[in-house]
């Protein structure tokens, strides 16, 4: 029964992952609303259920039963493809993330701690983040709306620009570790120390560029509501809008996971080697910390202007990332 090992287990594995991510997103939106409300001295959602805990459910129901509208001159195939792309590009990165020190076995079949333990894990992540801009660009173009198109063009320029410092920090990580395999990157951090200590600049640049790549505040220019209505999602409503919403939040979780693996040691922590389940708990805690930071930034930093955004990327982040790379290379060569 070889097909169970090679086909069935990965399918079940990824289905569980996708389901967890899709439900996790709902409560992430609740957490964000609650946290931002507390940061700005408000209460946040507190009507549906105890502490407003049923709010995501109510939102989901509302979204599902809304009428599906689409603009008259929209490019319908592309218009429908874009929300689908928004979710799928956010989810596929999870294939290479290790969750624990080792897997377990069910009925004699082994369940690995990572779905695909490939030796190009880090490059795969870079490739996946680089195709994330399609959903935004296509949504904006296909809506046949000026605001949407402007938002899409901004998003495209922003994502292509911030990919460069992001990629340069990844190269610095590869230089230090000497491997692109996610498992080996975590193993290196177990043997030495967390990479945030060895590569503090890379970690900070990665965090900032990650905010820009996932269109988070203060870099949420593609949907600046006070100049572009809602940017690329202006013409989307109901469940299609929910799909974009979902994609953005899953992008947040994915970036939290990437930062945790690259700079915070992934599943490593006291006792995680002996008890793999603890490793999963540490990993989730680290992701939660990163997401908290992103929400914190959103609540406290105003949105940047478009020219500031570009200048910051090309005249500050890029040279800093290059310098970091050169210094890292020199130190390693010595």
């Amino acid at each position: 029964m070889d097909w169970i090992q090679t086909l069935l287990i990965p399918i079940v594995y990824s289905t569980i992952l996708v389901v967890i991510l899709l439900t996790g997103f709902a409560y992430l939106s609740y957490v964000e609303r609650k946290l931002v409300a507390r940061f700005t001295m408000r209460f946040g959602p507190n009507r549906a259920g105890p502490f407003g805990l049923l709010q995501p459910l109510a939102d989901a129901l509302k979204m599902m039963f809304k009428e599906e509208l689409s603009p008259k001159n929209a490019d319908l195939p592309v218009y429908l493809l874009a929300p689908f792309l928004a979710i799928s590009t956010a989810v596929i990165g999870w294939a290479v993330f290790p969750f624990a020190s080792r897997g377990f076995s069910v009925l004699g079949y082994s369940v690995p701690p990572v779905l695909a333990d490939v030796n190009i894990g880090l490059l795969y992540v870079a490739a996946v983040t680089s195709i994330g801009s399609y959903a935004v660009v296509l949504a904006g173009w296909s809506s046949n709306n000026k605001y949407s198109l402007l938002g899409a063009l901004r998003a495209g320029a922003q994502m292509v620009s911030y990919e460069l410092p992001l990629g340069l920090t990844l190269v610095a990580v590869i230089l230090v570790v000497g491997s692109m395999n996610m498992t080996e990157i975590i193993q290196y951090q177990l043997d030495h120390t967390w990479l945030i200590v060895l590569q503090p600049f890379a970690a900070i640049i990665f965090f900032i560029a990650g905010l820009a790549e996932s269109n988070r505040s203060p870099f949420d220019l593609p949907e600046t509501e006070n100049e572009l209505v809602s940017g690329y999602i202006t013409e989307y409503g109901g469940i299609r809008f929910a799909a974009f919403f979902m994609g953005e939040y899953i992008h947040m979780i994915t970036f939290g996971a990437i930062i945790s693996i690259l700079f915070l040691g992934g599943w490593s922590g006291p006792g995680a080697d002996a008890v793999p389940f603890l490793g999963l708990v540490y990993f989730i805690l680290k992701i939660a910390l990163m997401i908290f930071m992103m929400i914190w930034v959103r609540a406290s930093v105003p949105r940047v202007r478009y020219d500031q955004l570009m200048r910051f990327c090309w005249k500050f982040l890029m040279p800093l990332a290059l310098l970091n790379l050169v210094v890292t290379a020199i130190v390693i060569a010595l």
Partner: protein
Amino acid sequence: MEIYLFFLFGGIAVVGALAMVFNKNAVHSALFLLLTLVMIAGLYVLLNAQFIAVAQIMVYAGAIVVLILFVVMLLGAELGESIPRWLTLRNSVMVLLALVFLTVSGTAVYDWLYSTQPITGTVTDEVIARQGSVQLVGESLFTQFLLPFELASILLLVGIIGVVVLGGWRLVQHRQRGE
């Protein structure tokens, strides 16, 4: 398993390429180009060249097709002219040449498929398992193919400098006039 995946990826790639050529909407064409490139990346994975596959996705899907979409959207050139007439002298010559090429390459593929000789090469599964395909690519780039590699870098550098000169030319003129 592998042969089914080959025909799946290859088939979708061919259909995508045809759809790209025959589509009248430039944005749709760009999207079919993207589909074809991703499917070809799948073929690279089947050939054990994961690095090339991911590099293909990063460079072509992540940057080049985005730029193509950008230009099409900015120029508003998504709706091209309809194809006026098919049968011209030029087109017939091209079809003829394409058929000749197809015959030649098809013969080569046929010979390869039905040859009894085993395929030999230095990059086998064992080599990749031992070194990891990224290390393999890097090593051969910096030893065997050092000169072409450096030449390509110089070409790219010239391109970058050219862009800076072209983009900054107006600025320089402004400065010279003292504005």
